[in-house]
């Protein structure tokens, strides 16, 4: 049966013969506009509001929304057959910005973006983090500024007198106290999706240990990067966490929601996740639970926390039927007003600077605190990765990481395996 699964795709020629292109090519914003967006931890209420406002602004545009938690899989055949939606928000399982760029599916926005403004300021000067560049070209605009960090229950920590870690040493010390006091493994993550640990703990650790250059080298699989001294030092820290018994030994079986449930039920005390966590687990949160967020404390004592933004971009399909309306929509979305609304709706931050959330009663406390912390260079240093790691490299590295975290291999063996995976990845390109 499985061969049938693979064989069920069509390679028919593109059927982009809709009449929208003709209408749109006259420069007017009208016709049909198809938008694909993933609905995950951030929900869809922000999208509904933005789209409703856009309809009001452009009454001649008819919008078709393709949305849901599995939308990337559902829309796959449209992309394969060359009949993609006009606008795509790239997020969630089954989506890969890098792959889409490599496949030539996204419109090159390098020239167009120069004329786009956010409330009168060029958009290129308004981003917190710049767009990903592929050979110097821009194919997407970073819409959501998320960052992975380490979560804890602030109320519980206060009640029990546990210190909130500020670096790796204090992290280990607090985990020791919790292990002793609560008889639990303090740290949990999802073994079914090991990239949570990779992106949530290792990227910041690599940033702190070797800056943007090391991040770029490990993500692109540069020769010798994974066996380099700073990477080995970071992996030694992970090995230490495992050897002390701080990593829940059952993590290998847990999917992301199970690990998050364990965390909410105080079966564990720390978990690395992005800003979507509170929104995603809203219905399951115990009443007395208070979310506390710190950038993952993997850096050495005396250094600022390291944050590696995880950007979720908005892009226009290369074969969009209605590029004019698509551009109008992308232009419409990037405003401070919608950035504020985004934080209110999702508990996360839109990638636009100068948005003041400090006095906003509709924004959660953890987000206000995190936002202030992230914007304080004495507390936090932001490192930037060039683009997301290719799944082809991320999967074998993630597998080796699980082995390390289960205690089945050493840090040295991990770096060796990761280096081999990187070599294979380089050869496949």
């Amino acid at each position, binding site marked *: *049966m499985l*061969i049938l699964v693979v064989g069920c795709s069509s390679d028919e020629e593109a059927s982009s013969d809709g009449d929208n292109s003709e209408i749109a090519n006259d420069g007017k914003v009208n016709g049909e506009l198809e938008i694909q967006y993933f609905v995950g931890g951030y929900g869809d209420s922000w999208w509904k509001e933005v789209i409703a406002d856009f309809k009001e602004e452009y009454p001649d545009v008819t919008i078709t929304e393709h949305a849901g938690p599995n939308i990337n*899989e559902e829309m*796959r055949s449209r992309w394969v057959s060359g009949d993609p939606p006009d606008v795509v928000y790239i997020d969630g399982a089954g989506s890969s910005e890098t792959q889409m760029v490599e496949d030539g*599916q996204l419109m090159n926005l390098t020239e167009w973006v120069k004329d786009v403004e956010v409330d009168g300021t060029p958009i290129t000067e308004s981003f917190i983090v710049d767009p990903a560049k592929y050979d110097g070209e821009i194919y997407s605009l970073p819409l959501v500024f998320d960052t992975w960090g380490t979560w804890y229950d602030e109320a519980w920590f206060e009640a029990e007198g546990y210190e909130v870690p500020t670096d790796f040493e204090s992290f280990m010390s607090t985990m020791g106290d919790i292990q002793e006091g609560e008889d639990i493994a303090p740290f949990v993550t999802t073994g*079914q999706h090991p990239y949570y640990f990779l992106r949530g703990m290792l990227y910041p650790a690599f940033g702190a240990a070797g800056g943007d250059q090391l991040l770029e080298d490990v993500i692109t699989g540069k020769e010798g990067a994974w066996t380099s001294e700073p990477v080995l030092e970071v992996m030694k820290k992970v090995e230490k966490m495992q050897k002390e018994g701080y990593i829940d030994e059952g993590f*290998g*079986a847990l999917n992301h929601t199970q690990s998050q449930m364990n965390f909410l039920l105080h079966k564990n005390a720390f978990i690395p996740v992005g800003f979507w966590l509170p929104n995603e687990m809203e219905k399951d949160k115990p009443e007395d639970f208070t979310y506390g967020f710190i950038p993952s404390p993997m850096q050495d004592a005396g250094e600022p926390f390291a944050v590696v933004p995880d950007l979720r971009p908005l892009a226009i399909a290369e074969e969009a039927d209605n590029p004019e309306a698509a551009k109008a929509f992308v232009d419409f979305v990037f405003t401070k007003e919608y950035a504020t609304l985004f934080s209110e709706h999702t508990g996360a931050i839109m990638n636009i600077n100068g948005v003041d959330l400090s006095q906003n009663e509709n924004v959660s406390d953890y987000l206000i605190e995190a936002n202030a912390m992230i914007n304080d260079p004495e507390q936090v240093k932001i490192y930037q990765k060039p683009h997301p790691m290719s799944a082809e490299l991320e999967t074998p590295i993630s597998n080796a990481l699980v082995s390390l975290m289960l205690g*089945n291999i050493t840090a040295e063996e991990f770096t060796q395996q990761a280096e081999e995976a990187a070599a294979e990845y380089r050869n496949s390109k």
Partner: protein
Amino acid sequence: MVQSKKQKYLFLAFCLIPTFIMFSIFTLYPLFSGLYYSFFEWSGSSESKEFIGISNYIQLFNDEIIPMTIIHDYFLVATKVLGIMVLALFFAVALTQLKIKEAPFYRIVFFFPNIMSVVVIGILWTFIYNPSLGLVNSGLQFMGLEDWARPWLGSEDWALPSLVLPSIWAGIGLFMLMLMGGIANVSKSYYEAAEIDGANEWQQFWKVTLPLVWPQIKISILYIVITTLNGSFIIVQIMTGGGPNNSTHVMGSYLYEQAFVQYNFGYGATIGVMILIFSLVTVLILQFIMRRERVEY
């Protein structure tokens, strides 16, 4: 006479052509498409693909994960065939030949998992195996066997064996009913004759029941083998996602990962071809091993 023969062929064509069309669209076309795509390097998410000849097949032979997935598949096949057939046969005999008053109730209980979706079964057993909240470890602790408690699905050593139990649990009911049907068809006179000859119940089982339900057993084994080789990826995907560190990947789940996670659709198609070949060869070998004259007394 000629007229009636013509009518007969027309009727046959009327019956067969729609079936053949459907079979071509939903089976042959995807089958040959899969074979076709196995000769391409293709991400599966765009139009562009490159013909690379047999490179995917060369990669298949050099892929270190593939032998592991084959071993895992056949481990599941062997344990499922053994577990399901022994238990299904036991319950079928017990519910037909022993005069159990509550037999209809047990029949429903055993068949119940068969009406549940595999996805639901997978999720249910994931909770049962949960290392800190699950029934298995709690039960072991309750019985004073806390040393036996372990992260079942999170351990590279225990994850694959842990998948066997839910698969057996979910499979017993159907095969129990099939075997019960076979046992019900065995004439009582054989048992009466055996009893007169002095055969005890154990001898009656071996000499009468087992040979006469052999056709049902054979079909059941083939069915378990085929469904395991082709369908075990669902339970793997739900319960472990192939992890930890590939320790539960079967051919199907590895195909899924390559095609839909790593965007190597062409290579995924190649794995699909391999699964087809393995399934066909396995079934042919089994047919050969299990060939046996029909027993009649």
